[in-house]
């Protein structure tokens, strides 16, 4: 089989005769799915077996990751996973309206999230609970969205973490605009420069907004890192429903670098994202990162993956678990012992218990919330609508109903 490098860049002047050498559909799909550890396409620093691979290009971006920092990354991922599982369970118990699981994507999110500096801005989609955590957004603040009491109320400027976006791809253009603003204000050019990162899925790459985001960021040299978490599925649709070539290779067509990283390798995600952010900070952006990972749970709690997913696929990916490989690495290197792992697990359990208690006691929003904050400026018409509705409700209270 020709390597993807060959088949995505045919020689000029190739005639129909050369078409025979074009890849078959199967080869195209194999190219999309090519994740061979250490292969030419994937940047990997820690194998699924927990072995550290040296990288002349990327090692320097994680030279500060000493055993303590590595334990920190492990702890982040364990806490995030535990909270995700708790939320998933709470949905099953009817405490949340819906949950969007991140199981399997902890390394992509924690690695890229920890690469950000305080001055940076992140634009998430709706699954980025792990990134939210690294930005200091309390997991509790996410729950309101899924308990359907609010649309997300955290202070996005303080955290450098924009509100969640459900409409696929919308946030990519918003992020491009934000990054253009950073550039226009002269906030790029050195190590202290600002950058923006935007998260989206493999399915999202088909949306016009995402393509337009690529164009805008490119022509204005916006300091924007496009972080595509390719978790192989867009609800029931596999990546080959979105593309004929590996997603990271699209960047070339827009005129900026694209790179594929092992999305289950927290060190590689950290290093590659730091590199990309540095490019942006210094005014060389944008960069597209394709984090090659896998959604190990349903798309959301309303989805039924048994209708479309092959179970052996899930089994294969379990062996590439992002947390397990760090655990093995820590243990083998003598950086952590069983007592420490137990302690982290206990901490994670406490984290989850706290979340559960918070969720159960979350107050119901009052009816006047329906009318609040529709406009930044006062709206007499809406005020009248609110007053009328509240007096209508008061009628029931007087009658002892509702």
């Amino acid at each position, binding site marked *: 089989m020709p390597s993807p490098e060959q088949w995505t860049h045919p020689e000029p002047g190739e005639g129909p005769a050369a078409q025979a050498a074009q890849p078959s559909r199967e080869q195209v799909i194999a190219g999309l799915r090519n994740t061979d550890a250490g292969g030419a396409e994937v940047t990997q620093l820690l194998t699924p077996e927990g072995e550290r691979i040296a990288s002349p290009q990327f090692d320097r971006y994680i030279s500060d990751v000493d055993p303590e920092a590595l334990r920190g990354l492990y702890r982040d991922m364990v806490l995030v996973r535990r909270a995700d599982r708790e939320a998933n369970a709470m949905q099953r118990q009817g405490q949340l309206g819906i949950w969007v699981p991140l199981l399997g994507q902890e390394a992509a999110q924690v690695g890229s999230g920890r690469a950000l500096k305080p001055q940076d801005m992140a634009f998430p989609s709706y699954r980025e609970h792990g990134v939210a955590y690294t930005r200091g957004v309390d997991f509790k603040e996410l729950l309101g969205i899924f308990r359907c009491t609010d*649309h997300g109320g955290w202070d996005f400027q303080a955290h450098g973490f924009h509100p969640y976006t459900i409409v696929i791809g919308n946030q990519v253009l918003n992020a491009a605009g934000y990054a253009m603003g950073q550039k226009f204000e002269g906030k790029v050019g050195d190590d202290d420069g600002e950058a923006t990162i935007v998260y989206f899925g493999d399915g999202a790459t088909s949306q016009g907004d995402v393509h337009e985001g690529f164009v805008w960021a490119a022509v204005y040299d916006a300091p924007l890192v496009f972080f595509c978490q390719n978790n192989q599925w867009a609800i029931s649709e596999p990546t080959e429903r979105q593309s004929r070539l590996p997603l990271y290779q699209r960047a070339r067509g827009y005129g900026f670098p694209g790179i594929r990283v092992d999305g289950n390798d927290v060190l590689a995600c950290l290093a590659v994202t730091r590199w990309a952010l540095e490019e942006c900070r210094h005014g060389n952006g944008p960069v597209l990162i394709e984090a090659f990972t896998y959604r190990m749970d349903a798309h959301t709690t309303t989805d039924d993956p048994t209708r479309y997913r092959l179970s052996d696929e899930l089994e294969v990916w379990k062996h590439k678990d992002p947390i397990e490989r760090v655990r093995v690495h820590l243990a083998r290197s003598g950086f952590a012992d069983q007592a420490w792992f137990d302690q982290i697990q206990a901490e994670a359990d406490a984290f989850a218990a706290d979340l559960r208690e918070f969720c159960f006691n979350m107050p119901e929003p009052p009816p006047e919330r329906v009318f609040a904050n529709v406009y930044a400026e006062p709206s007499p018409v809406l005020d009248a609508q609110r007053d009328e509705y509240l007096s209508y409700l008061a009628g029931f209270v007087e009658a002892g109903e509702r």
Partner: protein
Amino acid sequence: MAAPVKSPVDGAVPAMQKLTIGKALNLGLRAAMEADDKVIVLGEDVGKLGGVFRITDGLQKDFGEQRVLDTPLAESGIIGTAVGLAVRGFRPVCEIQFEGFIFPGFDQISSQLAKLHYRTQGKVKVPVVVRVPFGGGIGAVEHHSESPESLFAHIPGLKVVSCSNPADAYWMIQQAIDCDDPVLFFEPKRLYHNGQLKSEVDTTTPPGPLFASRVVRQGTDCTLVAYGPSVKVCLDAAEAAAEEGRSLEVIDLRTISPLDLAPVFESVRRTGRLVAVSEASSESSITSEIAARVQQECFYSLEAPVLRATGFDTPYPPSKLEEHFLPDLDRVLHTVDRAMGW
């Protein structure tokens, strides 16, 4: 006027069946695909998954991947290619996963789908159906509960309909597919799998034409007009009102554009009162249009101004608050009380 609906291949669908709205739509699509091999279904997850609401369940298995297309994730792409396919002679039926996600396709709908026939002086037909699950009451997160139908009704060149019961669901989807104009088909998602509405559907004879509203309950004191999910609310309200000795007439609009208001005028001339009900916000909406037209046509018959029970002029709230936003039975009856007390 569109050609009469072709009957499905013998045996494809049993003559009488007890169906939910969801199942009726599924069988209606199936019948249309059986009857005409130019009918193709396209959208996100419509294949193996059968759509997130399972409305296209089993269609890809039986009709193949070239007639039931799992598309890339792009609504502009879905609508835009459907326009091209229609120009080529197909009859595409697009599924938009949730109404809140139709807007990336709005440009294609308003610029191409709605205008191509006019622009080509009738030389090009674009028989595209866009199916849109809409409305609230399902406890969902943002963008999953909206009612944007007025935005489409405002675009000349489009036809907009909504169904409220299984028989209409079964037949209207086929009639929409058979229509030579583009039809936006708004499906009341909270009623899809509502067992209460399950009813016998005669799959041999359509209950009437597509673009016609219908009196679904007769009454003498006040008329209620609604469409889609609000029809059930109005029928329940009429039932409750009857227990208190008040007689409400209920009209299911069915067609939103073109509006068929003749039965509404006729009814208002008898009852003297009209309450228009819809989940959509009230400003610049279909209920505004109804109010304007009814006061123009029935001015001397009206005993009270046309009143409305609608969603508020706010974005759809977090769903823990949707009971306040959605016009429910109590709010409808309260509005009727106001009309009666004028």
